[in-house]
């Protein structure tokens, strides 16, 4: 796996995602403070931190599910503004997987995967179906293609959600605690899917507390607290020699739990 280059210039030529001095408020409440983050093509970032530290807010700013008030976010060279045009451009390149899957209940698994390519990219029905079947095969759930979300287990639903996002052929995938809503026995199937995706070279930002996954897959692990990035290091260093007291405390708590 690539060695991370912590010195990568922010917003440099090979930055897939660049966040420069990003600040976000929810009304009076400051949710993100001076976020600087550059993610290169093919890089895999794990984002962790206590609940309420701003992890979701950070990744939701990248595809503009949340707006931000200060700084700059670039995705694949597009500067993310407040206008529909750049937001559209960015959303077509960035896939997102949610904690609660958010599959569309009234559409079959196959239709879930075909909807956005057809309606957003204007792909033909035949092509959308071929892509959907291919990617459902890749997450090993093709045999459930005609079923509805409610007929699947949580782990299966999350794998469909991953396939659905991949059907847009994104350049980046964002994961917001994709395994936290799952029964323990289903966590592995989803993590395995994510690992396979990482091995294929997908650029990924994963909010997760699965530290085994972080060790195995991440180029860098980022620890957030109170809306700021506290520590950022390759996994060996992050787990072996955390520099900040808050990181140590956090790791102590969650490694103890697992």
């Amino acid at each position, binding site marked *: 796996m690539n060695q991370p280059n912590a010195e990568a210039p922010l917003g440099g030529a090979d930055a897939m995602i660049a966040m420069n001095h990003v600040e976000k408020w929810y009304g009076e409440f400051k949710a993100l403070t001076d976020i600087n983050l550059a993610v290169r093509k093919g890089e895999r970032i794990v984002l962790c931190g206590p609940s309420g530290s701003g992890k979701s807010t950070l990744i939701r700013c990248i595809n503009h599910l949340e707006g931000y008030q200060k700084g700059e976010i670039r995705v694949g060279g597009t500067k993310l503004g407040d206008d529909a045009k750049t937001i559209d451009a960015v959303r077509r390149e960035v896939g997102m997987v949610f904690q609660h899957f958010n599959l569309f209940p*009234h559409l079959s698994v196959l239709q879930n995967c075909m909807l956005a390519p057809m309606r957003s990219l204007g792909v033909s029905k035949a092509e959308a179906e071929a892509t959907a079947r291919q990617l459902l095969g890749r997450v090993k759930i093709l045999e459930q293609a005609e079923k509805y979300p409610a007929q699947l287990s949580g782990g299966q639903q999350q794998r469909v959600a991953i396939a659905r996002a991949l059907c847009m052929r994104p350049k980046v995938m964002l994961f917001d605690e994709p395994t936290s809503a799952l029964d323990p026995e289903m966590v592995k199937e989803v993590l395995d899917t994510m690992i396979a995706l990482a091995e294929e070279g997908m650029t990924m930002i994963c909010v997760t507390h699965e530290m085994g996954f972080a060790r195995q897959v991440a180029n860098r692990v980022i620890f957030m607290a109170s809306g700021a990035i506290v520590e950022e290091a390759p996994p060996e260093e992050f787990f072996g020699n955390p520099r900040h007291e808050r990181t140590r405390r956090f790791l102590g708590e969650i490694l103890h739990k697992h």
Partner: protein
Amino acid sequence: MNYTLDFTPVIEGMPALLMACLGTFGLALGGMALAIVIGVGGVILRDSKIAPVRWLVKAFVELIRNTPFLVQIFFIYFALPLAGVRLDPTPTAIIALGINGGAYAIEIIRGGVQSIGKGQIEAGLALGLHKAQVFRLIVLKPALRAIFPSLTSQFVLLTLTTSVASAISAYELTSVAQRIESDSFRSFEVYGTITLFYLVISWVMMRFFAAISTRYFSYPVK
């Protein structure tokens, strides 16, 4: 109690009564179609970015839901001509029914839309769909499913309310019945008969809606 039943006028008037059922259906269908348009449009405008638009929709809903239907239909039929808008009884009745049903539909549909989790909308947006597409392709069907029982009973109510249009002599079942009754003085027989007619109409509609529900809203949910 010395009333002898005599159904002769009803039997003689039967073809006219049956034809009038078509008039009732026409008013009901027109009213429902308009109510759906107003309902869906109103829900979209109800959450418009422009504040006065939101207020207008809210005011409309309050106005319609807190005034009698008979007054509304009289207003359109008798008062609007003073402002230069003159409509025949049938279009008047359809518009009044559509406006009235639409005001209720806005609130009902809105409840359905609000029952759809934020996560559904976010998933659609994250997939690159526009707000309007998210509404049409993702929110609408599950929302309609959630409210289908209340929306359809509102529609049955709207259908029965067509009888109020007899007050402006629109062509429908009650006004035809009134005419037969005033010619024959057979109130019990005439109104008893159309009571049964309305009962059958309601029942047929409910079966029809139930069939739609099984056809379109039978996807499994947890």
